């Protein structure tokens, strides 16, 4: 590949590059051979990078004006909204930015599920991605606590209380997390500290995520291995950069729509009521992006059981590459799995919906059915379908979408390796 032979043209460039090969890295990123058949579902990686940078930049500015104290936090947010120049814009970008970040990450994750991007040889990319997702949830949860409104306070109370379900040491752990005997000023203070830390951890993991991606290269909608570089690939720049830029702009239009015209629609109105430990809101609900997990938590009558199931719902994804037994990556060629994929999508949307509803009656039934299916999908459907499914014939290469005439993917791969 060209990056191995890359030498800077200028003498100074060569001098520097011999000591720190930043220019080689730049050349690698520019030339990086990318499958030419990537569709728009592949543009969300770039969009997510944009979201992270946006959150960090707006967050740093907000932190210059915010006061992390139980008596002053709510007022300091109003100070930002009213007295800081364009404070309202910066705060609305940050609060809606969190939602847009999760919208993009969910599309990114489901894209990976559909096209089998988590499968060999990309397991490490997938696992680092899940670690990023976990940290995102932690950051978002703590960020939601900072305005110190009613939902901030009671959300923090509910979530931190989950740890009290741990046998024997649960209560001690909860007290340790709070830094007090209830959610109080020390809790707010440490959440602010951690909320500022986590995005930089995410940034570090994003670097590893991209590094790990650049080893095998991108998966693609056909899901077959491709030779790089070849006539199946294009250089990252300008082909992918311009395409990512276009998709990002469309995303930014939607983002701006929320920020400028309905900035509070994704939040809960109770969070504009200052935190009051003596008044519990009628329904304590987390932000929309955590609702499916909240539904799983509440679907179990036992507290510890609910907590275990909720965490399992996330951690089961870590072993997904080994639960999926299919040799074919892309669901395009997996007629049975494809149906189950869409059932999973509906299932997660339904869990999100019932997560926002009171845990009673039909909603509790739906939450339980949804939870059971969620786990069945990963524990039963994925291994079994992978074995039994008769996959459609897959093409040998992207450029020549000639069908092999058989369902044997290894044949295609073998042929492809010879190309």
């Amino acid at each position, binding site marked *: 590949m060209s990056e191995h032979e890359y030498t800077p043209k200028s003498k100074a460039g060569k001098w520097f590059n011999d000591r720190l090969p930043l220019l080689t890295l730049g050349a690698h990123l520019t030339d990086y051979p990318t499958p*030419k058949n990537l569709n728009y579902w592949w543009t969300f990686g770039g969009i997510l990078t944009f979201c992270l940078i946006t959150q960090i930049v707006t967050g740093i500015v907000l932190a210059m004006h915010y006061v992390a104290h139980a008596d002053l936090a709510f007022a300091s947010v109003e100070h930002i909204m*009213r007295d800081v120049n364009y404070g309202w814009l910066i705060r609305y970008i940050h609060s809606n930015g969190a939602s847009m970040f999760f919208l993009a990450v969910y599309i990114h994750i489901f894209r990976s599920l559909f096209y089998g991007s988590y499968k060999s040889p990309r397991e490490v990319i997938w696992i680092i991605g899940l670690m990023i997702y976990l940290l995102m949830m932690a950051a978002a949860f703590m960020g939601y606590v900072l305005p110190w409104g009613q939902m901030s306070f009671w959300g923090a109370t509910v979530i931190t209380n989950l740890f009290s379900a741990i046998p024997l040491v649960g209560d001690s752990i909860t007290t340790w997390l709070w830094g007090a005997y209830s959610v109080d000023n020390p809790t707010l203070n440490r959440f602010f500290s951690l909320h500022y830390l986590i995005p930089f951890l995410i940034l570090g993991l994003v670097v590893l995520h991209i590094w790990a991606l650049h080893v095998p290269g991108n998966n693609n909608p056909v899901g077959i291995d491709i030779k790089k570089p070849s006539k199946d690939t294009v250089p990252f720049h300008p*082909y992918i950069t*311009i*395409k990512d830029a*276009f998709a990002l*702009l469309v995303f930014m239009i939607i983002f701006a729509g929320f920020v*400028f015209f309905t900035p509070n629609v994704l939040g809960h109105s109770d969070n504009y009521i200052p935190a009051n430990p003596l008044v519990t809101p009628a329904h304590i609900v987390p932000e929309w992006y955590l609702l499916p997990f909240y539904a799983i938590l509440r679907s179990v009558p036992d507290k510890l059981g609910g907590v275990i199931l909720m965490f399992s719902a996330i951690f089961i994804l870590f072993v997904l590459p080994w639960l999926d037994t299919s040799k074919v990556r892309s669901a395009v060629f997996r007629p049975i799995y*494809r149906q189950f994929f869409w059932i999973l999508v509906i299932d997660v949307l339904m869990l999100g919906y019932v997560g926002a509803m*009171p845990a009673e009656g039909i909603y509790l039934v739906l939450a339980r059915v949804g939870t059971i299916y969620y786990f069945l999908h990963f524990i039963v459907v994925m291994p079994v379908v992978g074995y039994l499914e008769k996959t459609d014939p897959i093409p040998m290469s992207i450029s020549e979408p000639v069908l092999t005439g058989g369902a044997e993917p290894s044949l295609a791969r073998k042929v492809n390796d010879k190309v």
Partner: protein
Amino acid sequence: MIKSNIKLLVLSFLLLISLRPLQSAEMVDPIKVDWSFKGLTGTFDRASLQRGFQVYKEVCASCHSMQYLSYRNLGEPGGPEFSEQEVKAIAASFEIEDGPDSQGEMFTRPGKPSDKFKSPYPNVQAATAANGGAYPPDMSVLVKARKGGANYIYSVLVGYEDPPPGVTLDDGVYYNKYMAGNKIKMPNNLMDGLVEYADGTESTVDQMAKDVTTFLAWAAEPELEERHKTGVKVIIYLVLLTILVYLSMRKIWSRIDTEV
């Protein structure tokens, strides 16, 4: 195949959403008012904001604080836009406690535009004690703090009724159609002709409720007009840029045999 699946997905999601009314069967939906500040280019009715401030000052302010607003806000663009003299006069009509002075004493002085709105009670406990155990909430962000927003606030203001037969109310509790649980500790304070509007508008209950709600909507979102104006510009800019980038993308990808 994928398309039909997406259709199925959308259909089932719509079905789920349609289940929603099951949950909130008891609550009466607030009255929908066609506010001037609604929509993508909505702005506040300046005269209504000024009248609304008058209603707040003469009626609500005896119990409700608005601690995050300053008198200077009343003269700022996008708000009631009182003149500088008017703002100074409004501020000066309040006695503000200041200090300590060089002797260590607190003192009172006439308000200045930079002062925050004077609160009727020194603290939440005093406000609660003086109002039969119900704290009259601070109204700075009240419109954002209630589901239904301006429509809800307006509805509660005009929603007082005699309790239906069978409902008995304690002393100091009133029946309100739109309030959650239908019980409210705030009495019906608005009656026709209560306020003498400076601009000669007839002060019906409906007029006063609309005006004060408009004022509260502005108080909660003083940036609304600037936000809408900037938003339209930002979206137009982004759409134009998107078109240019799209055309560039088509041109660049035309070198390749693949559809972009």
